[in-house]
């Protein structure tokens, strides 16, 4: 029996090989890849170190008191406005929905897990420019990323089956798809009627035991919740244990970074942070990786402004914080005669990707996907507060009867779409609001492009038609409106070959600061069709290879 290496504790004043800010979809993978390759790594994670057994089926706390989000806007101070001429205010619901916990948002996400397709990386060339936007091609292609999508499949653990128009894959899914639920059966029924194509949903959830981890027990608490058996393929379940087992990765939980320092040579030298007791600390580093998510990464760069970098670190382009993309969404709801009990098991088991590609005949840019899921009928409070048809009184006997009747019989068809990159959608530092550590809060300015909203409505029309064709006894929708919050935080430090119009290069290295790497949703150039986490993880595996190669060539 080999003994486990002890937990390292790296001194603050001796430069460690890498400091990684964030332990989520990207940070967890980079930490595992670099530490197992022999580098010393310190992870700074602002959330606590929850383990699988700490996750609870407590809807009130998790969904309505923002337990995993670190306490919501009261703690984060985040503010929101649609347009730059408004004063941003703190809304009740957090605008940028990300988990503060080891594993980051990979711990609480719904685990829908789509690869991008070839077109997502070169759509600007395939179509045309779109006035008033920063619509652009990626500097990398699907073919360059494909080996890393496959690496995610096999290292993280992905369940699924190929669909008819999926991107090329070099290796099959490691695990079969999750069995179809009633919502999926009904979507298939509607799709058959309408001549559309249903396919199984891929999941970052284990349909069978894999790599020493347990399979899904169908508890139903995927969306917003952490997985108590570790079947959800979060970095907490799949990567962090390997990073720690290397003996070279120190996870400092409840440590909130507030500044990246640079030295006289313009290189990142130290990350300053608040430790769990609120003391200011600094970890010196040979290189720094920010994987803090599409809001926190640009925020930290903006907080790191100095005389040498007056507009924020790594921001000579002015693109830090710009081009925020949420993915627009729409919902169509239906009730059926018999119980679906769709609150059991994973959210989504069937999707339709017939509208993935943009089609000029629609009169607007965009593409997206449809999925069938319980959504509002996944948990009771959500159902009562959000899931009722508009023709039902909001309180009283009729309200109660409707909740009681619909909960087990209801499902939704969710449309998720592209978002266009625009200057007006961005992350800046709020001039007034501060978070619980005293750091300037993120101010989100966001208004979906009209084409994104049109695409969301287009998908919602199809959702309504599908519910009708599937035999819903009642179906309803609310008009698509500009989004005010999202868990998809994309595009705010985009990658590109031109330092004038991007923040990092194709290897995730900052154009301005040679030993500073940014890798997370902020790296995206386009938004994809609504499920970004698989691509964040693939980018992280690829970035790790590029960083290891640069280190081997002594080129960091």
């Amino acid at each position, binding site marked *: 029996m080999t003994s486990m290496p002890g937990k390292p504790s790296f001194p603050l004043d001796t430069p460690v090989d890498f400091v990684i800010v964030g332990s989520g979809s990207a940070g967890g993978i980079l930490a595992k890849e670099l530490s197992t390759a022999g580098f010393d790594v310190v992870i700074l994670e602002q959330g606590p170190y929850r383990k699988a057994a700490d996750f609870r089926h407590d*809807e009130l706390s998790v969904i309505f008191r923002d337990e995993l989000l670190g306490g919501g806007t009261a703690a984060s101070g985040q503010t929101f406005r649609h347009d730059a001429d408004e004063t941003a205010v703190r809304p009740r619901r957090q605008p940028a929905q990300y988990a503060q916990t080891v594993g980051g948002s990979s711990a609480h996400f719904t685990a829908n897990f789509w690869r991008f397709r070839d077109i997502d990386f070169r759509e600007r060339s395939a179509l045309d420019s779109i006035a008033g936007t920063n619509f652009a091609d990626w500097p990398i292609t699907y073919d360059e990323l494909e080996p890393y999508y496959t690496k995610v499949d096999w290292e993280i653990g992905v369940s699924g089956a190929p669909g008819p128009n999926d991107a090329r894959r070099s290796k099959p899914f490691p695990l079969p798809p999750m069995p179809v639920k*009633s919502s999926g059966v009904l979507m298939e029924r509607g799709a058959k009627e309408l001549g559309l194509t249903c396919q199984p949903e891929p999941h970052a959830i284990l349909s069978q035991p894999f790599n020493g981890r347990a399979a899904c027990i169908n508890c139903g608490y995927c969306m917003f919740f952490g997985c108590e058996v570790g079947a959800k393929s979060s970095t907490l379940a799949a990567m962090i244990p390997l990073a720690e087992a290397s003996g070279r990765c120190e996870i400092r939980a409840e440590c909130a970074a507030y500044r990246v320092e640079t030295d006289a040579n313009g290189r990142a030298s130290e990350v300053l942070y608040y430790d769990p007791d609120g003391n200011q600390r600094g970890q010196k580093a040979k290189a720094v990786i920010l994987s803090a998510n599409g809001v926190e990464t640009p925020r930290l760069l903006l907080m790191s402004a100095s005389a040498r970098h007056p507009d924020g670190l790594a921001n000579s382009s002015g693109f830090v914080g710009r081009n925020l993309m949420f993915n627009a969404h729409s919902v169509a709801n239906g009730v059926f005669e018999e*119980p679906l*009990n769709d609150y059991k098991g994973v959210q989504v088991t069937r999707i339709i990707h017939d509208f993935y590609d943009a089609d000029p005949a629609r009169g607007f840019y965009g593409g997206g996907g449809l999925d069938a899921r319980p959504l509002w009928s996944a948990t009771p409070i959500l159902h009562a507060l959000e899931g009722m048809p508009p023709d039902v009184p909001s309180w009283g*006997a009729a309200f109660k009867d409707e909740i009681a009747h619909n909960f087990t019989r209801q499902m939704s068809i969710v449309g998720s779409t592209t978002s266009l990159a625009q200057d007006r959608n961005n992350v800046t530092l709020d001039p007034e609001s501060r978070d619980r550590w005293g750091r300037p809060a993120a101010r989100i300015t966001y208004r979906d492009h009209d084409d994104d909203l049109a695409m969301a409505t287009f998908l919602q029309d199809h959702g309504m038609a599908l519910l009708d064709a599937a035999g819903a006894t009642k179906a309803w929708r609310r008009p698509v409106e500009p989004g005010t919050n999202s868990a998809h935080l994309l595009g705010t430090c985009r990658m590109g070959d031109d330092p004038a119009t991007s923040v990092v290069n194709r290897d995730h290295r900052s154009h301005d600061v040679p030993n500073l790497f940014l890798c997370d949703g902020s790296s995206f150039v386009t938004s994809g069709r609504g499920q970004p986490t698989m691509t964040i993880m693939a980018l992280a595996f690829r970035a790790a290879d590029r960083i290891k190669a640069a280190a081997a060539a002594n080129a960091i």
Partner: protein
Amino acid sequence: MSHQNTCTRRGFMGGAAATGAGAFLRLGAPALAAITQAACGARDDGNAFAVLGADAARDLAAMAARILPTTDTPGASEAGVIHFIDQALGDAMADSLPFVLEQLEALDASVGGRFAALDAAAQDAALAGIEDGPFFSLVYMMTIFGFFSMSRYGGNRDHVGWKLIGFDGHHGAWQYPFGYYDAEAQRGDVDAG
């Protein structure tokens, strides 16, 4: 409709017609009586409230009971929602306590007596007048939370709320098939496409 009257009303034991009552009815009458006794007993315990006085508790319980009324199925009263509200106003929502007490006084003043002492129709009329305001909205949220959140927060006694809607969420693990349509597809009764 007073507190006590709501409690002693056993209307929901009466009929199987209403939707969602199935789980309750399968429990049988003795189990039902026990649930109701437990909920009422706890609520009527003079020491049960952490921050609410008896009058405020009666008014809030009455409001909750109009939002989720007791019909032929249980409502906010049977779920002990008032205990959730009391616990929340003493803890996570303590900031709202002064507002709630002030608004209750205003409500009582507007109806010329205690809200809880009105009959159901008069209570509904009074609530209809304030339903777009922040006070009703707050009590509404607390009622839904108290009916459907975990029992450890004080409400959803004996999982009354979950049983009403057919949610067995506390079980935690499930085997396929889950519902009617996936079972049908699994049996091959219909072509799932």
